């Protein structure tokens, strides 16, 4: 009881401190959403076309270059609220979720420009990729529910 009570007490104290501190500061405030393409009259593509590369938010970090799909992890872990300006969690859940039956490239078969993972016959390729770097599988298939797709063959 003592072991679990301590984290609970810490949590409650942290909640109280967070709530109290949040009433007192006036840090840079992000809007709820980025203006829509309809509002802008065009589809926004490159953050730094309109925003400072290193202003209150370092927008250069969030420019979706050609390898963004493979390399956005660091930016998302530190800047989730910047991602949330344009993307709802459902967008992330195409790939990152506890249980997704359809792989993203299959669910969005016609969105081939997005270079989504596992396109084509990944059943064969995963045997090799899994041997070479199993850590890349673990991020999305590492808990019992997400590994349900692995269990059929891997037990």
């Amino acid at each position, binding site marked *: 009881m003592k072991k679990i009570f301590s984290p609970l007490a810490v949590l409650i104290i942290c909640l109280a401190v967070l709530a109290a501190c949040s009433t*007192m500061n006036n840090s840079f405030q992000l809007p709820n959403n980025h203006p829509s393409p309809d509002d802008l009259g065009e589809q926004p593509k490159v953050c730094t076309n309109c925003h400072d590369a290193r*202003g209150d938010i370092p927008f250069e970090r969030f420019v979706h270059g*050609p390898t963004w799909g493979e390399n956005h992890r660091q930016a998302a872990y530190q800047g989730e609220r910047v991602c949330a300006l344009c993307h709802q969690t459902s967008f992330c859940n195409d790939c990152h979720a506890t249980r997704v039956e359809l792989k993203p490239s299959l669910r969005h078969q016609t969105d081939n420009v997005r270079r989504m993972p596992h396109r084509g016959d990944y059943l064969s390729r995963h045997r090799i990729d899994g041997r070479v770097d199993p850590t890349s599988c673990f991020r999305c298939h590492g808990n019992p529910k997400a590994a349900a797709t692995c269990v059929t063959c891997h037990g």
Partner: protein
Amino acid sequence: MKVRFCVARGLLLAVLALLALPMNSAAVELRVQSDTLLRVFERDTTSGTDNLVTPGYEYLQVDMGSLSEAGLSFHAYGWGRYDFADNDFYQDADAGELLYGYLEYKRENANLNIRLGRQYIFEGVANESVDGLRLSSDLSENISASIYAGQPVGLDSTSGRSGDSIYGGRVALHKMSLGEVGLSYKNIQNDSDTAEEMAGVDIALYLPKGINFFGNSSYNLDSNGFAEHSYEFSIPYENFRFRPFFQMFNYADYFATGANSVNPFRVLATGDEEISIYGIDLSWLKSEAWTFVGKFKYYDYDQADGNQYYGLAATWHPGEATDLGGEVGYLNGDLSKNTYLLTRLFATVDQLGDKLWLDFLTGDIVYASYDQDIYGEDYSLFVSLGTGKTFLDGRLRVKLSGDYSQDPYFDDDLRGLLSLTYNYDHGL
């Protein structure tokens, strides 16, 4: 039991507190997105060969409340599937999952954000779906923090949810235009045993001449070892951007996630293997239309011999309506069975409404050649074609696609997919 009661009471109090929060006068909005998918393919099942499988999927997203401004809102997203043929391809004909469903309160100062319910948490060492409470806020101009607690969704399939819990948080120090340093912690209990206890540090440094440095390390407090180091530079030079990177994973600490360890990863955690990945990405934005990418990765192991990956890609985007691209990748494995060549060509032609009844056409070819046969085959060929059209001023989009695969698992596999996406957006 007492702990569960405490958590339940805490969550109840949190709900009441959330409902008591000041509401602003923003209009209540309702947005609904429905994705209905129907797939068709053939499989051998326990009830026969070449059985037609026809699963239908519904992905439903609902957002309601103060969506355009700070305030109180509700968000939910989930999917369900029913196999209309019901001929034993799936264990159960129906399946589904609520991916998230939470109340959210945002306040206009300090970036205060409170979420209660099922939610996905991405921050620091957390990459988890949680039924619980999360609170984040700026504490001062340069410090922000977040904490969360509840039950991990990913473990509800292992002996139920009794004794399952998760809590953690992240504190970040950020200085405009200099960078950010974050410290994070996560503790997961599964059936009252420690499933995972991780601490991490993440860093972003914005250096002169547009050079950036990003990275994170995570430490497994359960096995007492560093699980991961991942660090990278981003270096711009005219139209080029270089991204040299380094990653290290210790299998015993990375995969040894205690009571929630699952196969095929459980067996990896029992070894002493460590992988280090060195590499570089090179992007060249030659013009508005042309983009080129080069990629090299070297996989170095403590025990096994190394592997190398080489990749090249090019895309052509002459205007809003057209995208053509191709890529080649070669994995040069230490063993023949770890070596393959991958090639892909894709095309999307959009905004065809003036010329055709259809709005867009897409095509995709993926070809893989394996150095060592897999089930007697040394290649995979995948071809996909798609098209679609929008109706009702863009609120309804219908897409139809078909794909064909010839590979080590299927001699000839033909599949079809019909997709209907409907968007409803309305002020209440």
